[in-house]
């Protein structure tokens, strides 16, 4: 019983995010003219899964106390790569998919190596590598275009057994195959340790460098998976800096809304997924409530600001003001 209480206490942020999402999504479905139908859910899922994957990617470096400002650009870069590699006969498609995912992981590994061995601050490192990845995306696709195997893309953006959106299955697979094993591994726990207290982690023999590099590499891999999914949704590749920037910034917001601390050491990718779902549902709600388009950006901004300020509640509960400065 006590154990359950403790676990609930530790996961407050995640639980809150899940509850808020289900409330918002119910509100959305209740006001949607078509109601709860498979196409409505599939469309919502396809949009939300892209941000959810990028937010998962962002979570890993944040857990180590870092940040990855290049996730959006890796997302764009792998999108451009996929738009020229994932087509042809099945073997070519398989190789292309593998290359795209590997390219994402490699981009993440480069970030990790610079942060660990170069000992540069993650913010500025990923800011700079983000520019490089955007440059590579432009090299790959100077003008929007390309194509992707249509059968595969259709399958990935429709449903399994005509009920469950395939994109949600992909997201679930990412959680089951990448996130959960990682979180329970020694390296993954090392990420939490590094984020909580790097010096203490070092003294207790945690392989700090290995944990950090794994976090950035997996972030690249997940961003690569998101880029691949984007290609299936849009059937093309586009090297667009605004899209990359928006995804990077929204991924940070999703991580925070999902209950992960920006100071590292607490939280997880599940929360970020629901954080991303919440952000996407806000957009959908604006659509069903038919808010004048001119008001939409302001409304989105205010909701985002309020959402990230919710954590401020703790400020008013603190007895010892010195705790504010931790």
């Amino acid at each position, binding site marked *: 019983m006590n154990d359950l209480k403790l676990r609930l206490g530790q996961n407050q942020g995640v639980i809150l995010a899940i509850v808020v999402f289900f409330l918002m999504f119910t509100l959305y479905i209740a006001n949607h003219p078509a109601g709860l139908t498979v196409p409505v859910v599939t469309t919502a899922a396809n949009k939300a899964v892209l941000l959810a994957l990028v937010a998962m990617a962002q979570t890993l470096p944040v857990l180590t106390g870092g940040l990855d400002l290049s996730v959006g650009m890796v997302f764009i870069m792998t999108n451009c790569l996929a738009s020229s590699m994932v087509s042809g006969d099945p073997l070519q498609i398989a190789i292309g998919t593998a290359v795209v995912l590997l390219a994402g992981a490699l981009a993440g590994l480069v970030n990790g190596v610079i942060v660990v061995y*170069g000992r540069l601050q993650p*913010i500025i490192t990923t800011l700079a590598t983000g520019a490089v990845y955007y*440059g590579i995306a*432009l*090299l790959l696709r100077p003008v929007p275009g390309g194509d992707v195997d249509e059968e595969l893309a259709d399958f990935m953006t429709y449903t399994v057994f005509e009920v469950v959106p395939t994109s949600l299955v992909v997201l679930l697979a990412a959680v089951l195959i990448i996130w959960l094993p990682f979180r329970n591994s020694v390296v993954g726990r090392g990420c939490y340790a590094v984020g909580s207290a790097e010096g203490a982690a070092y003294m207790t023999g945690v392989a700090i460098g290995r944990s950090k590099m794994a976090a950035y590499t997996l972030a690249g891999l997940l961003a690569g998976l998101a880029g691949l999914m984007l290609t299936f949704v849009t059937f093309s590749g586009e090297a667009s800096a605004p899209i990359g920037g928006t995804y990077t910034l929204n991924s940070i917001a999703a991580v925070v809304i999902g209950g992960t601390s*920006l100071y590292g050491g607490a939280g997880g990718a599940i929360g970020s997924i629901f954080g991303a779902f919440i952000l996407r549902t806000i957009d959908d709600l604006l659509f069903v409530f038919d808010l004048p388009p001119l008001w939409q950006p302001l409304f989105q901004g205010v909701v985002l600001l309020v959402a990230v300020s919710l954590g401020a509640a703790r400020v008013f509960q603190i007895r010892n003001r010195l705790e504010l400065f931790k």
Partner: protein
Amino acid sequence: MSIQENMQGALQGALKSVDRPVVIAFGFIVVMLLAGSLYSSSFLSANYLLQQLQVAAFLGIIASGVMLVILLGHIDLSIPWLVTVGGMMSTAAAGWWGPEYAIPFGLFCGLVFGLINGLGVAILRVPSMIFTLGINAVAQGVMVLHTGGFAPQDHASETMRWLAVERSFLNIPNAVFIWAVIGIAVVILLKRTPLGRYIYAIGNQEGATFLSGVNTKAVLIACFAISGMCSAMAGVLLAGYSNKGYQAMGDPYLLPAIAAVVLGGTHILGGRGTYLGTVAGVILISLLQSILSVMQMPEAGRQIIYGCVIIGMLLVYGRGQRVQG
């Protein structure tokens, strides 16, 4: 005697650690100019250099505010739309009430958003990275509503054009003088006022500064407010330069501003850095962008070189300490 020697040694050590990035950054500027002059002799002409300074002035004004925030150990991601707010609200004010209201109103709007940033970070203790991001989104929303709902005037007033484009003294662009005035004010603020000491102190140990009786909240709010005003000022000048305030005009300035501050040796986690370094960083970034565009490097190559130069330079002098217990 030995204490004095110790102090001297410590002082020299401190000078060395601060100055090295500045020296390397200025050295790199000279190398870039020389390399550029091999490509075309016009790189060393006074006209080209002044033109570079004029473009650098916009970035320099933004970087001045960003530097104060970074010295605190925070970051201001609301730059893009606060620049836009400055540009668009000043042109709108010129249309509503007359040209003399343009610049004050633009700066006032930047100040208001900056104050909200400061309140959120200082009072609510939301991490600055995410709160300023939210303010950026709100500012964008306000600007979209403002343009679409009120169809405001978007062309710059005579004074704004004069400040941004004209060269009224010794053929030096007026924008450079504005940057110089702001820069000198920031140097005096950092070196000669208690507020400046508090900024460095908070960047090093906020809790200790609070316990020493400093009103840390006021310092945080002041710095974010100054940063908001600097962004708005740059927006006013940019609107004057292109003769028009338009949406997303501040988008290309966020990353260069942060990069310039950090390349100038200011520590991204706060507490260390000099304004001279920021000047070096600003000139370096502007010059790098200009040389790449003069060489007609395609955008892709420009981005890659840009990123590699930042990483490369920081690997030379910006590396952190090895983790120890």
